[in-house]
């Protein structure tokens, strides 16, 4: 029986992973500011949850300067995409009644 992924299951982390997974694998990821807008999270909250996902190896974080402005880009890793796909499959199984 498949288990829900505790790291992804937290509501904000689920939103972050859903947003990153919506991009093609070849895409460069999402900027922190764009992710903040999409999830409706605060800076501190979003940063903390991205760190949790990064520690689990589900996302990679790239920091760079564009001109003089710092820019943080978050990208789903292959492991993160796999974990997210399994998490979604488990949710679908629960709805289908295969798990109680």
């Amino acid at each position, binding site marked *: 029986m498949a288990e829900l992924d505790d790291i992804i299951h937290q509501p904000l982390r689920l*939103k972050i992973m859903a947003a990153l997974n919506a991009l093609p694998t070849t895409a460069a990821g999402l900027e922190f500011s764009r992710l903040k807008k999409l999830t409706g999270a605060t800076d501190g909250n979003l940063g903390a949850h991205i760190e949790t996902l990064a520690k689990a190896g589900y996302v990679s974080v790239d920091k760079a300067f564009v001109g003089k402005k710092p820019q943080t880009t978050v990208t789903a890793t292959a492991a993160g995409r796999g974990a997210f796909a399994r998490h979604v499959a488990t949710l679908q199984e629960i709805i289908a009644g295969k798990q109680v």
Partner: protein
Amino acid sequence: MIDSKQAASALAEIDDIVQRVRQSRIYDLASQMMIMWGVLVFVANIATWLWPREAYYYWLAVYVLGIAGSFAISAANQASTGVRSFDMRVLLAFLMFVAFGFLCAHVLGHFTPRQQGAFWTIYFMLFYALAGLWFGTAFVVIALAITALTLVGYFFVTGDAFLPWMAVVNGGGLIVGGLWMRRS
């Protein structure tokens, strides 16, 4: 373990975010193209106002530069998103759209320069409004605003002032609309 209601709620949350990401990427790309076309249309209207004899060359240049610019923006976005947005099919659709407009304005009808200024703007805004039915209400809002202001100019702005009016309404409208769409 969670129950099926909570699971359905989580999946709905995922669908909602996926839709928002998709729309955000469409708006991002469309805003770049809109700003580029806005600059071209603004310049062409002002040039037509100042030197009306060469108007056809300016508008031909707008189409050539606009298509080339659309390909360039699409290629630049493809590098970062992996998705090709302006391809040969879109180009053909665009050319058919322009050909039909040409048929209406020059063959079936013989529009005056003033009528053409209003017609082409409203005709392109129809395209934006239709796109909005699939890709987001911002397209519809921009199309309706530019169409309404074009009609105001057509009926109430007299003489040569119509061209600078159209430069601001059509060119400026696309630029402002593109900037607004980028923030949406």
